[in-house]
C-alpha cells in the first residue's frame, strides 16, 4: 500500500497557479495542491474564495487560514532570423491570502477574505529586442471580500459578498524601436500608480444532496482598475517639439480584472476525494490598453483578449490522521490571441501540475504546503500592433517564447 501511494504521487508529477493573462491562481495552498479546484470542496476557510456559499459547511465555529507563495517564473525569447535572444530576470512574486469565517448558527456564517488573485511581474533585460513593448511590468491587486453564507435548504447553501480591490501598477518601456535622445540613449516612458480602488462582488451556491457528492457554482464580477492619479515619467527624449518633453506628467488608463464563472463537483470515497472545476474567465473585456497622458500624447495598445477556459482536476487522500496528501492537474487556455502576443504577459496555453500536503500538528493547527509547476509549450508568436512614433505602418515583434513557473507555497489552517 505504501508503494502504491508513493507511485501515485510520482505518477501525478511525471504526467505532468497561474491562469492566463495576469490572473494568478494561488488562493489556497490546499486547493492549489489539487489543481486549484475548490468550488465544491469544503476543506477549510479557503472556501471563502472558491465559493462563498461553502463557509456555512465548515464544521468548526471559528476557522482561519493564511498562506503565501513564491512565484519563480522565467521566460526565454529567441528570434532565429536575427539571432536575438533574451531572458527575463523577474523578481519573485509573492501572492498571499488570509481567510476567516465564523459560524453564527447552523444556518448562517460570516467571513472575511484578503487575497491577491491578479498580478504579474516581468523584467526583461533593459533595451532588449522587445523593449518597445515592455522592459518591466509589475501589476498587483489586493482583494478584500466580506462574506455571508446561508443554508437555504438542507441541500442548498448560498453565499455572497462585495469585493474591494486595491490595485497598483508600474510599467516601463521604450518609446519606440529606435527613438533616442541626441546621445543615442533610448527614449523611455514609465508609469506608476498605487492604491487604485475598484469594486465588485462575488456570489456562490453549493448543492450537497448527500455526504459524498457536492456541486458548486461561483461567479466573480468584473472589476475595472481605473488609474487616474498616477505618474508617467518621460526620459531620454530628444529636446524637440516633434517628441514629448522629458519629465513627469499624469496619465489615465483602465485595466480590467475580468469576471470569472466557475462550476465544479467533488466526490468523496472514505479517505479519497476527487474534484473537478471548470472556469470561464471573461477576458474579452480586455480589448486595448490605452494610456492617455496629460502631456497630450497617447499610447494605444490593442490586446483583443478572448474569453478563456480552465479545466482543473484534483485529488486528496487522507494518508493517516496527521497527513493528507494532494495532487492535481489543470489545463489553462490562454486569453491571448495570435498576433497579440505581447511580452508583458507572455502566456500561451499551459498545463499546471500540482501536489502538496497538510500536516495536522494538533487538533487545531495544520500546516499546508503546495507546489505548482506550470509548463508552457514553446510557441512562435508575435505582437503585430505596435507603431513607432512618427511611423504610419505597424511593425511586428515576434519570435519563439518558452515560459515556465515554479510556485511553492506554505500556509496554516487553524480551527476552533
Amino acid at each position, binding site marked *: 500500500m505504501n508503494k502504491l501511494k508513493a507511485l501515485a504521487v510520482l505518477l501525478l508529477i511525471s504526467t505532468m497557479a497561474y491562469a492566463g493573462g495576469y490572473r494568478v491562481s494561488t488562493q489556497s495552498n490546499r486547493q492549489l495542491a489539487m489543481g486549484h479546484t475548490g468550488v465544491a470542496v469544503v476543506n477549510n476557510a479557503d472556501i471563502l474564495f472558491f465559493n462563498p456559499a461553502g463557509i456555512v459547511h465548515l464544521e468548526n465555529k471559528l476557522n482561519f487560514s493564511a498562506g503565501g507563495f513564491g512565484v519563480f517564473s522565467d521566460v526565454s525569447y529567441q528570434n532565429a*532570423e536575427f*539571432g536575438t535572444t533574451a*531572458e527575463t530576470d523577474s523578481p519573485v512574486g509573492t501572492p498571499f491570502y488570509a481567510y476567516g469565517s465564523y459560524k453564527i448558527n447552523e444556518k448562517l456564517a460570516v467571513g472575511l477574505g484578503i487575497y491577491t488573485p491578479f498580478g504579474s511581474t516581468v523584467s526583461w533585460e533593459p533595451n532588449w529586442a522587445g523593449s518597445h513593448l515592455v522592459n518591466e511590468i509589475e501589476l498587483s491587486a489586493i482583494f478584500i471580500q466580506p462574506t455571508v453564507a446561508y443554508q437555504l435548504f438542507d441541500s442548498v447553501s448560498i453565499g455572497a459578498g462585495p469585493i474591494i480591490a486595491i490595485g497598483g501598477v508600474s510599467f516601463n518601456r521604450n518609446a519606440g524601436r*529606435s527613438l533616442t535622445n*541626441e546621445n*543615442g540613449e533610448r527614449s523611455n516612458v514609465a508609469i506608476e500608480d498605487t492604491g487604485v480602488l475598484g469594486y465588485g462582488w462575488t456570489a456562490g451556491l453549493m448543492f450537497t444532496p448527500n455526504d459524498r457528492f457536492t456541486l458548486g457554482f461561483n461567479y466573480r464580477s468584473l472589476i475595472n482598475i481605473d488609474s487616474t492619479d498616477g505618474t508617467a515619467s518621460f526620459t531620454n527624449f530628444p529636446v*524637440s517639439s516633434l517628441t514629448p518633453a522629458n519629465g513627469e506628467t499624469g496619465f489615465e488608463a483602465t485595466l480590467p480584472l475580468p469576471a470569472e464563472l466557475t462550476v465544479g463537483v467533488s466526490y468523496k470515497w472514505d479517505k479519497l476525494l476527487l474534484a473537478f472545476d471548470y472556469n470561464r474567465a471573461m477576458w474579452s473585456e480586455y480589448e486595448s490598453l490605452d494610456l492617455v497622458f496629460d502631456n497630450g500624447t497617447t499610447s494605444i495598445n490593442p490586446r483583443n483578449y478572448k474569453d478563456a477556459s480552465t479545466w482543473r482536476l484534483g485529488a486528496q487522500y487522507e494518508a493517516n490522521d496527521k497527513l493528507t496528501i494532494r495532487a492535481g492537474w489543470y489545463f489553462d487556455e490562454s486569453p491571448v490571441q495570435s498576433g497579440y502576443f505581447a511580452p508583458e504577459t507572455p502566456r500561451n496555453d499551459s498545463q499546471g501540475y500540482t501536489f502538496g500536503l497538510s500536516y495536522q500538528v494538533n487538533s487545531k493547527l495544520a500546516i499546508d504546503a503546495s*507546489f505548482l509547476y506550470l509548463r508552457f509549450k514553446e510557441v512562435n508568436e508575435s505582437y503585430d500592433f505596435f507603431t513607432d512614433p512618427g511611423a504610419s505602418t505597424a511593425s511586428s515583434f515576434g519570435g*519563439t517564447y*518558452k515560459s515556465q513557473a515554479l510556485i511553492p507555497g506554505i500556509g496554516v489552517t487553524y480551527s476552533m
Partner: protein
Amino acid sequence: MKKLNLKYIGLFIAAAAIVSCETEFENPIDEVDVYTSGEADFSNYVAIGNSLTSGYADGALYLDAQTKSFPAIMAGQMELAGGGEFIQPLVNDNAGGLLAAGVPIPGFGNRFVLASDGMGSPAGPAVYTGATPTTDITNTVTGKLNNYGVPGAKSFHLGAPGYGNIAGLLLGQANPYYVRFASSGTSTVIGDAVAANPSFFTLWIGNNDILSFATSGGSGVDQLGNLDPTTYGSNDITDPNVFAGAVNGYVTALTSNGAKGALINIPNVTSIPFFTTVPSNAIPLDAATAGQVMSNPAIQQYNGGLQAAAGAGAITADEAALRTINFTAGQNFMLMVDEDLTDLSGFGLPNLRQTNDTDLITFTSASVIGTRADPNDPLSVIGVAVPLGDENVLTSTEQTAISDAQNAYNTTLENIAAANDLVYVDAKAALAEVAAGGVSFNGGVLSSTYASGGAFSLDAVHPTPRGYAFTANVIIDAINEKYGSTIPKVEIGNYRSVQTSDLVN
C-alpha cells in the same frame, strides 16, 4: 508512523526538485554551430574604406552613428558565426566636430540634426549645438583596430604614406580622421589594415573618386588619362586605371594570408538625396512676375543674340533653343551658367541657359535659390536674374563623365573579386531600389527621400544608422551566398533614421 510521514515529505521535496529544471528551447540559437561561417573565417573582421565604412553621418563622425556603422552591425551578427571582437577608433562625443590641439578644425564642425519649428512640425537640418566638440585628433588611438574607414578617402589615398601625418594637414596631404589612428607619420591606411591581420575584410572604396566631383557640381576635372593622382585636385574624377591599380594592390595585400572578403561597388550618385531633393524647376512665378522678368531688356537682347548667332552658323538651332530664356507662370527652370556651351563671347553673349530635366541640382543650392544676390536689389533673385553657378548644377555632360568612371570602377571591382574568390556586393543595385520608390521593411518603407525617407542622413549623402543597417544586410546576404555562411541579418526598424533636436543654437 512519524517515519512514514517524513518519507512522504522527502518524496514531495525530491519531486519538486526534479521538475525544477526546464527552460531550454527545442532548438536554442545561442549554442555553437547554429550560425556558421561557411568557407569564411570571421574571427578577425577588418573593414577598410571611406566615410561609409567609418559610420559617418549627418556631415560628421559622431559616436552614436559610429557605433552603428555597417561594419559594426555586421560584426555584431558575425559574432554568432565565430566572429570576434570588433574595435573601432571611436570619437569622443555626439557633437561630431574635430579639434587639433584644442582648436576647432575648419570644415569639420558638428553634425546636423533635424530641427523643428517649435510647434510640432519639422523645420529642416541645422547644426547641433547641444554639445561642444571634444574629439582632438592629437589624442591618437593606438593598438589594433578593426575599422579602418577614413572619411573623405579616395581610392589612392588608402595607399598614400603620410596620409595620417598631422604635419601634412595644412598642406592638404593628410586627413584628420586618419591622423587620429595612423600607426605612424608615414604609415598607410592599407598597411595598418593588413598589419591587423584580417581573417575577413570588406573593402568599399572609390565613392569619393567621383562623389566630390559630383557634389561640387562638376567643378573639378575629369582626370581620365592622367595616371598621376598627386596632380589631382580634390574635386576631380580619378582615372579608372589609377583606381584599378590601387584596388588591385590593396586586395593583393589583404588576401596574402588567405583572407576572404567582400568588395562593395559604387552606387549611382542619383541614388542619394543630394541630387534628388532640389528640382531643376525650383522657381515658382505668377503670370505678372514672369511677364516682368521677361520684359527685362537684357533677356530680350540675349534671346535675340542667340538667333543671330544661329543665323551666322556659330551655334546650331538646337543650341539656340536650349539657351533661349523663357520664364512663364508656374514652376520655372532656373537661369544657370554652363561652361560646356559654345563660347559666344564674340557675339557679346554669356554662357547662359535655363536648367532642364536632365540637370541635377545640388542639395546645398537650396539655400541660395530664390534669394537675392544683392539683398537690396529685388531684381537680383538667384536662378531668375542672377544665374546659378557651375557648383550648383550637375549637367548631363558632367553626369556622363561620372557614370563612365563609375562603370569602369565597378567592372574593375567585379573582376578583382572574381579573380580572388571574393564577394562582389552590388550596393549600386540595392541603393537604386531604395531610391526608386523604396524598400519595405517590418514597420515602414526605407526610401531616399530627404529627411523623411529614413535611409539618408541630413547631409543628404551618407546613410542614417537605418540606412547602414540596410547596407549591412545587403552585404551579409552576399557573403552568405558566396561562402555558404549563415550570418543572420538585422531588423532594420531597430535602427534610427534622422535625429530630431532643437538644440541648434
